[in-house]
Structures are given as structure tokens and as C-alpha cells.
């Protein structure tokens, strides 16, 4: 079942025995996937963990191995409040230890190669796993070359904060340390990117912080776009809450072409902006492994069958979450990744049983906080009709609402977060 050398077999068995998983995982080594099916999941985020769980729930006879390079998962959703200083990083942090209870074999390792012909993956620790079906959910990678001077090294001084963790804390430190009167600069990326309302949620919460602690400062958003998600709601709230935010769209010179981390400056075609607090959110593409495996098209993202999330490039590989091209309308969000994972899991289990592709139901929700007591949301439901994804309902929070309504949505945002995280990690 596994393409393991004897050395790795010994090593892995040790690990599995410790996790109490040894016996059912290796019935007889070398017996091909006869009867018992094996699914490998690459990436343990909003998409991957849910796919692993739902496959096991739907068919406990399937063996599932989840390969995740990090020991801990830091959630991006609700990390913007950490930057603004009203949330502890601890509540963003989750561990994989409960997944063994669901019969999921978790390996902390990085997948470096996928062989779609032999149907196997190999890892940085040079283990190799063969699969009957593979789920690829690596999230996003940054296009380090897209803005001149914005390299991975530069991001240690000018953080992106678009993968939560040390980068989030760095942004918080810079915000706390900046001088009253200096601008806080956010460089927003072109579509498509992870969490379309995210940069504007961040701008709002930074402005909330500045209003109290650095009232002479303002937020400047330099944008590669000329419109953004939930725009009327954000702009309305900025007025209502008295936030000092200047948004420079692309058609007014918002596109940043060059960054200099040594002099802490960013350049548009018209102007240079300097500050001790700069946040560049770079243009994005599907996670590195998706590129290495040739799962991407010329957009840099992975095309998939919209009904099953099976790659249209390689058979038996399913790409979910930020890395895939879901229909244009379904954004790259944690909620969407969760929804796509459940659809792919059902499709995989049905395929093993020789059943027809199940009819999917897709849902997305994104809450955004504009202050600790001010939340807004977008929600939508899609169905698969006449061979395409079709929107059935959806919309954003009302533009006019009472403070009590906004406060309720802020509380529901926390509740949403707890629900979706507990579904993943408990």
C-alpha cells in the first residue's frame, strides 16, 4: 500500500505506534490497494483537514493520511484583530492531536513531489506514499517577483501577514511602535487572492486602533484594483465610525511598482510613500506543490471539475480551497474551502463505491470586523444546475442597520470562527 523503503517503514511505524494507530494502517505491506482504499491529503488547513475528516466519516474503511508541514495551525480568519491588539494569538492557534481519534494518520512533513502516473507523493523527509486518490489543499503562495523589491527577505521588514503566525505579530508590533502622525500603509493585491474583504477589514481595524492611540495618523490603502468586496458597506462604516482611511484605487495611481525594505518605502508611478509601518499583501498563486505537480494552468491556479473538484489536468487528484479555481463567484475563503472539502470528500467516497457523482451544495460566508463591536457579512448558496455552478441566493449585510445589529454580527463572527475551527480540530 505504501511505497516505503524498509528504513522509512520502521521510522514511520514507530511514529504511528506512538499515536496508537499501527495495526490497521499497514495490513500487509506490499499488498496493493486491493479492497482497502488509501487517500492522501496534502495540506492541513481549512480545506485539507475537513476533506480528511469527511472521507473517514462517510466511509471508515478508507485509510486517510494527512501530510502537513507545520506542527501548529495559525488561523488567518480573525488574525486582523491580533494586529489591532484586541485578540490574543493563542486563540488563533490549533493542533492536530485530535485527528488521530478520527482514524486520520497525520504526518508532519512537506510534500515535495507528486507522481500522477504512479499515483504517489514523496516528502522532504524522503518518505513516499502511494494513493488511490489524492487531495491537494496547499493554500496560496506569493508571487515574490511581482512587485520589484518585494522578496521573501523583504517581508521580514515589510510583513505581508497573509499567512498567520509570526508575520501577524510583526504587523502588530509595527503598528504599536509607529509614531503618531505617520501613515499606516497597506498595499492591496489584484484579484484573485485569498480573502477578498481581508485587506479592508485590516484597514478598518488598524484605523480603529489609530483613532484611539495615534489620532494624527491615517491608513492609506494603495490598491491594484478599482473596486473591492463589500465596498459600500466598508466605505459607509468608515464614515459612520469616523475612521481616517484614504483609499487610492488603481485608476488614481494606487498600483505599487517597487518596494524598498531598507528605506521602508513603496513607490507608485506617481509618488513615493514612506513609513515605519507598511503592510504589503503581494499578488498570489496556488501553493508551491500545485505548481511543482503541474496542476496549474496559465493563471497560476488549478482548474477543476466544478462538480467534484477533481483536477482537469490529472486524474484522481482533487484540488480544493484557495489553490483551486472554483467558479469565479466563489471566493478564496476558509468557509469556501470547508464547503469544497465536503463536496470533494463525497465525490471521492462515491467514486470508490462506483456510485454516480453526488450533487453538490456550495456555501460561502465571510464575516468582517470593523471594530470589536461592528461586524458585517456576506453569504451565498450555490447549486450545480445544467452542468454549471449557479447561485441560488446570497448577499451582504444591509447598508443601513442599528448598532445592535452590527454588534450581533460581530458576536456571530466569533461564533462562526469557533464552530468552523472546532469542526476541524476537535
Amino acid at each position, binding site marked *: 500500500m505504501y511505497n516505503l523503503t524498509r528504513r522509512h517503514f520502521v521510522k514511520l511505524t514507530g511514529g504511528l505506534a506512538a499515536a496508537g494507530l499501527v495495526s490497521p494502517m499497514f495490513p500487509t505491506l506490499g499488498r496493493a490497494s486491493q479492497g482497502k482504499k488509501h487517500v492522501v491529503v496534502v495540506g492541513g488547513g481549512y480545506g485539507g483537514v475537513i476533506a480528511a475528516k*469527511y472521507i473517514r466519516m462517510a466511509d471508515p474503511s478508507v485509510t486517510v493520511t494527512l501530510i502537513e508541514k507545520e506542527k501548529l495551525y495559525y488561523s488567518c480568519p480573525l488574525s486582523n484583530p491580533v494586529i489591532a491588539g484586541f485578540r490574543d494569538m*493563542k*486563540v*488563533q*492557534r*490549533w493542533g492536530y492531536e*485530535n485527528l488521530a481519534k478520527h482514524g486520520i494518520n497525520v504526518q508532519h512533513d512537506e510534500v515535495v513531489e507528486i507522481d500522477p502516473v504512479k499515483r504517489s507523493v514523496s516528502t522532504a523527509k524522503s518518505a513516499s506514499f502511494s494513493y488511490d486518490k489524492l487531495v491537494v489543499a496547499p493554500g496560496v503562495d506569493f508571487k515574490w517577483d511581482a512587485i520589484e523589491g518585494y522578496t521573501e527577505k523583504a517581508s521580514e521588514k515589510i510583513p505581508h501577514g497573509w499567512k498567520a503566525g509570526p508575520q501577524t505579530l510583526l504587523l502588530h508590533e509595527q503598528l504599536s511602535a509607529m509614531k503618531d502622525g505617520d501613515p499606516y500603509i497597506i498595499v492591496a493585491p489584484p484579484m484573485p487572492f485569498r480573502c477578498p474583504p481581508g485587506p479592508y477589514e485590516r484597514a478598518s481595524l488598524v484605523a480603529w486602533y489609530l483613532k484611539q492611540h495615534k489620532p494624527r495618523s491615517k491608513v492609506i490603502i494603495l490598491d491594484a484594483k478599482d473596486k473591492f468586496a463589500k465596498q459600500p458597506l466598508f466605505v459607509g462604516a468608515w464614515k459612520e465610525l469616523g475612521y481616517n482611511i484614504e483609499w487610492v484605487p488603481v485608476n488614481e495611481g494606487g498600483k505599487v511598482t517597487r518596494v524598498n525594505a531598507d528605506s521602508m518605502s513603496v513607490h507608485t508611478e506617481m509618488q513615493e510613500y514612506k513609513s515605519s509601518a507598511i503592510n504589503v499583501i503581494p499578488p498570489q498563486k496556488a501553493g508551491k506543490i500545485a505548481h511543482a505537480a503541474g496542476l496549474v494552468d496559465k493563471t497560476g491556479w488549478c482548474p477543476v471539475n466544478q462538480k467534484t473538484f477533481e483536477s482537469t489536468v490529472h486524474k484522481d487528484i482533487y484540488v480544493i480551497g484557495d489553490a483551486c479555481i472554483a467558479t469565479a463567484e466563489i471566493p478564496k475563503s476558509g*468557509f469556501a474551502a*470547508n*464547503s469544497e472539502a*465536503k*463536496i470533494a470528500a*463525497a465525490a471521492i467516497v462515491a467514486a470508490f463505491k462506483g456510485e454516480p457523482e*453526488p*450533487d*453538490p*451544495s*456550495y*456555501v460561502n*460566508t465571510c464575516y468582517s470586523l470593523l471594530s470589536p463591536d461592528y461586524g458585517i*457579512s456576506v*453569504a*451565498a*448558496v*450555490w*447549486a450545480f444546475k445544467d452542468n454549471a455552478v449557479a447561485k*441560488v*441566493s*446570497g*448577499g451582504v*449585510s444591509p447598508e443601513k442597520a442599528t448598532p445592535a*445589529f452590527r454588534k*450581533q*454580527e460581530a*458576536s*456571530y463572527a*466569533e*461564533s*462562526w470562527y*469557533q*464552530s*468552523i*475551527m*472546532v*469542526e476541524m*480540530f*476537535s
Partner: protein
Amino acid sequence: MHDMKRRTLVLAAGVVVGGLWGAPAMAGPTPSMLSNTCAGCHGPQGVAPGPSIPTIAGMPYNFLKLMMTEYMKGDRPSTIMGRVAKGYSDVEIDAIAKHFAGLKWGVQGGASVKGKSVDPAKAEKGKALAKECEKCHEEGGKKQDEDTPRLAGQWLEYLQVKIDDYKTNEKYPQPKKMKSQMDKLSVEDLDAIAHYFAGQK
């Protein structure tokens, strides 16, 4: 009590398709495919970890169907459920209601932020005041009959928000006898009642 059943009957007459208890012949997504999407907000298997989105697992079928249908038609004010519920047909709502009615009510651990906690003094005061409520919300809010939701152990913040809606929002559909009880009680008394029901196991 019968006053409540009337609300369900009115609904049943309005719903032509899928009104039968038996599994409706459904093409399209299975009940679990539809219902699994709710977990992202209501928690795994409809059991919410809090602090405010309600647990819906094990609620009565009639109640779930009534709520979803009212959200769908725009008859019940909400922050987000109106936008969600419009995504489903009557037949699908019926299947979803059955799905969650068949799951087990529970308390979900594992949250990284805890919900508001019950104040024992308020709960004690609320117990005495809840007598009229318990005519319908029997056994400390544990018993659920056809269209009465469980209140015992529901998230405190949710009960507070709902009670406030029922008391102050004229557009909120509710049994007449419940409204008249809400009208008689002060905001403080109702808050104490919320603590009482939330504290029941």
C-alpha cells in the same frame, strides 16, 4: 399550547411540496450534503461551541422547518439566516429540518474563546419568574414538543438576543401567548430568565 400548533398548521397549508413526513423523492443534493454546510456556523452535527450562534441539533422538526421557511420567505428578521435560507427549496428545507431533528442535542467543547457564563444569582431569580414560560417551555426548557424549541443549555447570548427580539421587535413572528408574557416582564426579569434557561443541563 395549542396556540403554538396553529402557527405550524398555517405553515403546513402554505407549503404545498414536500409537506409529507415521508422522504420526498429528491433529485439533487442529499440531506447530509445540504446540512453539512450549516456546520461552518452551527458547529459539527449542529452542536455549536458558542458563544452566540445556536445549537440546532435535536430541535423539533416542526420548529426547524418553521424557522427556515420564515427566514426563506423573509417573514422572520435575522442578521444572516434570511440570506442563507433563500438558497433552498421547500423540499430541501424539509429534508434539512428532518436531518437536524434526527441529530442529538449536545454541548460542544474545544472552543478557544468561551461564551458568556451563567450568573447563578440571576438564574435563581429567573427560575421563579419563568413559571409562565414553562407552560410551554416545560421541564426547565428541556422538553421539546412539536414546535417548541429547547431552551435548556442554549447559548446565553443567543437566548438574550432572541428574548430582546421577541420583546421589542413587532415584526417578529411568535405565539401570541408568549408575546403577552414577554410584555408583562421587565427587561431585567427576562434577562434573569435567560440565565435560568441557559444554565439548565
